[in-house]
């Protein structure tokens, strides 16, 4: 259940590029605008909402292609300064309090990141699992006053994917992913991802707020809010080093 939730978050966040003709172009363009082609730098605040409590965590993240990523926790105070570095398949965590970097075992990648609804994997690995789906246009729909394409993703045979079906709504004017629906194998709607608060970041119009809502779990959601962002800035490979993992602020 939790895995599916995380997965749907992932697809929404990191859906990659390999689709057929027109739907592919739509998804590809949408991804390019939000994820950048070469690199993305972002300030993100994540809020975990449960019926009786909420917790907030802020971070700065730098990523370059699918190979390199660096994430710095900026709040809460308890975890401030903790960084995660990813180079290829290797991942390290730097804990300033004990002044040591620890290499994470690969099996830990699927685990919750600092107690959140995101996994280590979500943060440091680019997911390209969308390649495992075939797609089709569905009926167009208006969401938040915007005319949207509806794209239905069905898993290809032999594809080891969690969802029976994913439906994405992408705005026609700005290629914004305004809504995604994640269905299980029996065809039941499990998670809904909503994109809102359309604003400009580094000259691009994007959804700056994303809410992942598990349909069956009342009062529960995870909200990602994007602050400052920079797209396709030249980041040297040396930025993703053990040295910088300790220094970055």
């Amino acid at each position, binding site marked *: 259940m939790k895995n599916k939730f995380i997965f749907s978050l992932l697809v929404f966040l990191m859906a990659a590029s390999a689709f057929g003709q027109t739907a592919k172009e739509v998804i590809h363009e949408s991804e390019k605008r939000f994820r950048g082609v070469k690199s993305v730098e972002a300030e993100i605040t994540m809020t975990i909402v449960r019926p009786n409590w909420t917790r907030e965590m802020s971070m700065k993240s730098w990523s370059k292609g699918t190979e390199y990523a660096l994430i710095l926790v900026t709040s809460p105070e308890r975890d401030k300064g903790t960084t995660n570095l990813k180079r290829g398949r290797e991942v390290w965590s730097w804990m300033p309090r*004990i002044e040591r970097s620890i290499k994470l*075992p690969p099996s830990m990648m699927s685990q919750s990141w600092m107690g959140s609804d995101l996994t280590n994997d979500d943060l440091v690995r680019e997911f390209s699992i969308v390649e495992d789906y075939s797609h089709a246009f569905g009926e167009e729909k208006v969401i938040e006053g915007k005319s949207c394409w509806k794209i239905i993703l069905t898993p290809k045979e032999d594809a080891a994917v969690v969802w029976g079906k994913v439906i994405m709504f992408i705005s026609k004017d700005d290629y914004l992913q305004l809504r995604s629906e994640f269905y299980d194998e029996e065809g039941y709607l499990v998670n809904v991802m909503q994109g809102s608060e359309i604003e400009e970041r580094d000259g691009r119009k994007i959804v700056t707020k994303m809410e992942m809502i598990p349909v069956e779990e009342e009062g529960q959601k995870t909200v990602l809010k994007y602050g400052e962002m920079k797209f396709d800035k030249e980041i040297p490979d040396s930025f993703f080093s053990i040295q910088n993992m300790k220094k970055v602020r």
Partner: protein
Amino acid sequence: MKSFLRYLLLGGLILSFSFGKAQDSDQPKLVLGGYVKYLQSNAYINPLKALTTNNLIHNRLNLKWYATNRLTFSLEARNRIFWGEEVKMNPDYGELIDTYVGLVDLSALWVNEEAFVMHSILDRAYLEYATEKWELRLGRQRINWGINTVWNPNDLFNAFNYLDFDYEERPGSDALRFTYYTGLLSSLEIAFSPSKDLDQSVAAALYRFNLKSYDLQLMSGYYRGDIAMGGGWSGYIGGAGFKGEASYFVPTEQSTDSLNTFSISMTADYQLGKVYLMASAYYGSRGLDKIDLGSLQTGLLGGQLSAKNLYPTKWAFFTNASTQLSPLSAISLGLMYSPNGHLLTAIPTISYSIKENWDLDLVGQLFFLENQSSFQNFVDGVYLRMKWSY
């Protein structure tokens, strides 16, 4: 010393409050952080049927001043107030906690009453100059060369006792350290930590590099009269993490020791679904073949640890399983076992996030030992800790 410390602490506070978060650039020059912890300890000694309690308020103040792009000044203070039965039962409690083996005395025992002790220490105080390629650090600092979580034969500068869970930062060493980054994943570190008795100094070099997804390190140097050499690794076998480190010490004429010492520790860890599993093994040639109650007191709880002797017995094993129950709470169970005398320590913990920056921990340390051919629970520690981070 007292006035010096007071000046530093007050000065730091005032500076950081006046300039701390009001910088116009997006990166503040002065950063202040830390926490306040309250630890309530209960020790139950089984054979005596006696319960001893103690209280500790513990404040940590971390101050970083980014003077220029390259120059950083770090100051971290640990202020503690102890009171309760344990303090009362140990007439020398104040003196006992006021021991520091460093070169410069940066501590102050403010109050040392019968059942009430106040103590402050600066356990970090250093200047760092860093360029793209190298860093130079002078002053009291943590030089962490260990790889494992529990036993660190490579950690020449700050050997620690795993059971001392309330001091995760660990003491610093008065040292000069030079780090040169030879590559993105490789570096050479040279560190010198002088002692008042020069023979007792530590001077060593560590080279880290990465080979086929393995982080490797080689270490060599002079360690309190011995020649030390060692190395470690950290990598994967399948989905599991696999790491370890070993050191070998050969006495020189300056050594008070006459025997060679070897210690090694290895760790494997694995995430099985929601449960994180970890197992560690340790061998130290200087450990006891058989531990009894008497030697345990001095060995394990007395805390005479060094890189040469990280555990009172020759062999020791540790396993730990932990899991997150919700984003707010986690539980874990650790078991530390030594076949040399059948010493077992069970360490159950529960942690809970009360609200943002407020944490609650309940930690148990239950000791069992073979005594006159029966396996006995001789002492249990239960600790309740509340922590507020700022």
